[in-house]
């Protein structure tokens, strides 16, 4: 319920003031079309264009890419992205649609790409004009990322790509893809290389994007099939065979544990995403009847709701503590817990909501009588996306045990 930053440097303080002033003037009101709950669930062009326009405006105002050098389209500032994020969250702005570009592609291109490539790609990434997607997962790879089979065969100065990627959110809107490929079948980790690939122009010419349907019935992510797609060697990041190391940069930033803070907006999203917070559980329990009384009077429901309130507050307090050096023993210990906590708390919250709803949890979106519009059973199902994608909870626990507690690798 509380989240606050450490004391601002003079540069940060000034920047914060500017940001706040601009946001006071320019934060959009209610969107003209219904917005999805997360950037990964953008389904229509209308939604996309509205959010792209917002990202462009925020970029032009200097709120995105603040800490990157000016030469690659950044703001050239020091530690200001966090300030921008805080102000955007507080202002209740829409979220930034190019979420994979900003969180994963940008730092990877920045640390591993050639100078020319950075200067060309990053400005349009920051502005949201080019949407990015990510091609890591494969039907046969799962949590074992190094098992990537999609193959790139050398052909002069080009590579010919064949294979099958899955869970590629935003691929149907994307201009560019970050792509982990196998360039050598004789070794596992060292046989991987990392590319950026312009997929939009290749649609129907070597690239097929097919929507996958989630267990909720929604679409929102895709499979991408490569058939003899030719890509220039200049789109390779870092050296041949170093794909695994480059991918680690991507994943580190995805987990919020990288050097570069990901631009994050989304106060508006946070407002609507409150649907899945413990506070909303309490509201739900007031409106729901259970054994002849409001569910909020049931001691067991109360206990479960308070558990969730405590876990959420604990997560916020973790973030606050992670900025107080004297209260930490290991630099990554709190940061690496974030994804695990967030996803499991959300899952349990949704499960408790269904318990509160009781028999009415059977009702889905199209039913007028569904409590909260049928969102909770949908949230519960979607929560498994969070505990599976981007490193399952099982993998997260491995990482924590191995990197923080120094235990032997489980694989």
């Amino acid at each position, binding site marked *: 319920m509380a989240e606050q930053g450490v004391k601002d440097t003079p540069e940060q303080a000034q920047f914060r003031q500017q940001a706040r002033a601009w946001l006071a003037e320019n934060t959009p009101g209610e969107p003209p079309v219904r917005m999805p709950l997360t950037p990964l669930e953008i389904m229509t062009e209308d939604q996309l264009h509205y959010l792209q326009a917002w990202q462009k405006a925020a970029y032009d105002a200097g709120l995105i890419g603040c800490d990157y050098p000016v030469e690659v389209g950044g703001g050239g500032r020091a530690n200001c992205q966090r300030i921008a994020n805080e102000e955007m969250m507080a202002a209740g702005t829409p979220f930034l649609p190019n979420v994979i570009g900003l969180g994963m592609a940008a730092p990877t291109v920045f640390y591993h790409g050639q100078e020319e490539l950075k200067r060309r790609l990053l400005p349009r990434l920051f502005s949201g004009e080019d949407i990015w997607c990510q091609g890591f997962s494969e039907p046969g790879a799962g949590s074992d990322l190094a098992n990537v089979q999609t193959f790139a065969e050398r052909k002069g100065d080009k590579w010919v790509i064949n294979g099958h990627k899955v869970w590629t959110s935003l691929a149907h809107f994307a201009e560019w893809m970050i792509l982990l490929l196998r360039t050598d079948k004789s070794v596992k980790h060292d046989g991987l290389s990392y590319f950026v690939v312009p997929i939009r122009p290749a649609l129907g010419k070597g690239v097929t994007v097919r929507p996958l349907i989630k267990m909720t*019935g929604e679409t929102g992510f895709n499979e991408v099939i490569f058939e003899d797609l030719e890509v220039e060697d200049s789109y390779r990041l870092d050296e041949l065979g170093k794909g695994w190391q480059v991918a680690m940069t991507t994943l580190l930033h995805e987990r919020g544990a990288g050097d570069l803070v990901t631009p994050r907006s989304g106060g508006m999203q946070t407002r609507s995403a409150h649907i899945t917070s413990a506070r909303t559980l309490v509201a739900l329990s007031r409106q729901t009847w259970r054994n002849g009384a409001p569910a909020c009077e049931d001691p067991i429901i109360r206990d479960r709701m308070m558990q969730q309130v405590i876990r959420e507050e604990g997560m916020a307090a973790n973030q606050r503590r992670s900025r107080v050096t004297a209260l930490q023993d290991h630099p990554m210990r709190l940061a690496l817990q974030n994804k695990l906590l967030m996803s499991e708390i959300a899952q349990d919250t949704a499960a408790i909501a269904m*318990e509160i*709803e*009781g028999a009415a949890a059977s009702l889905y979106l*199209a039913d007028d*009588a569904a409590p909260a519009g049928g969102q909770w059973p949908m949230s519960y199902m979607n929560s*498994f996306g969070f505990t599976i994608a981007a490193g399952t909870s099982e993998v997260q626990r491995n990482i924590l045990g191995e990197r923080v507690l120094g235990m032997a690798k489980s*694989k």
Partner: protein
Amino acid sequence: MAQPDDFGFGEEAALLKESARKLFSEHFSAGTLHALVAGDPDPNRAPQVQWDMELWQQMVDLGWTLLAVPEAQGGVGMPLVGVAGLVEEAGRAAFPCPLLSTLSASYILAAAGAGGEAALADIAGGATAALVISNEHGSWTGAETSVSGEGDSLQGTGYFVQDAGKVSHLLVCASAESGPALYWLPVDTDGVTVAQDAIVDLTRDQAHISFDGAAARRVCTDAASALSEAMPAIWTLYAADMVGAGEWQLQTTVEYVNQRQQFDKPLGFFQAVKHPLVNVMVMIDQAKSLVYNAACAVDCEVEKAARYAHMAQASASDMAAFASSRSVQMHGGIGFTWECYVHLFFKRQKHTEMLWGDAVWHRARLAELLIDNAA
């Protein structure tokens, strides 16, 4: 009356269970189910009633709908342990049909005394029935019914009616002059409107049913006691359904993790996968044993039926929740997709888990029996 050592689960019961499993495994795979009910993934889709009426007719012809009808009314009068075995298998196949509803109605009618005999004879003659006993909050104690009966005419709306789109008759609990009473009527009676709910579960249909002066036969004037007498059997059967579905979830997930390779090992090598699935198995076994335990009590030691049925339901509900969650998680990304059959059973289990009181509710009732009413 003493309980038989083997739950009274004899040869006839074993034969029925075995033949049901065979029938479903031959004619109704999870793939068949998916093709039947999962054609339209749209989360905003309108409610639909999709089932295989031909296969269902075979089951009717086999006499499954009249297993719980007493012999005196032309039925089989099979002990509940045997019926539970059948329902476990139907749950394992998640076969969409009004078997559970019709069996449930039979138990209530049998508990209704002489007034129920004619309706039981209808079932023995091939009728199927749905229960209209819940109000808008999902309560079904009788006293809180949202339907009222005046003479032989019904008024009001009943909620959370299972299989309403698949049955020929309705068994309704309605408040009458002398308190809640039970009524019996064909579903196509004038003044009956079946409004399908848009539900998450694809393997069932659910409706709220409005009565506007619909004519019905009064079956019994003390619905509360008939319901409280029959509910242990009904809870036990819904628990059996969850146990069957849980076995499908376990078996399917184990097959997947034994075959799927990660880090050069089958997924099942990893204790983070293996141990939760062992826990699923342990929970299924507990629930299964308690189902037959409860069924045997209903058959042979009726004064303990309620307590054992609460145990079975509480155990099965917790298991259904956990087995569902792990079935998706351990399938990883593929388990999260519509094309993977796992979601069918996930949704069915979450539906059943909440239907007749969740685990906490059943434990609270059990506590009343064991703490407050005991010495």
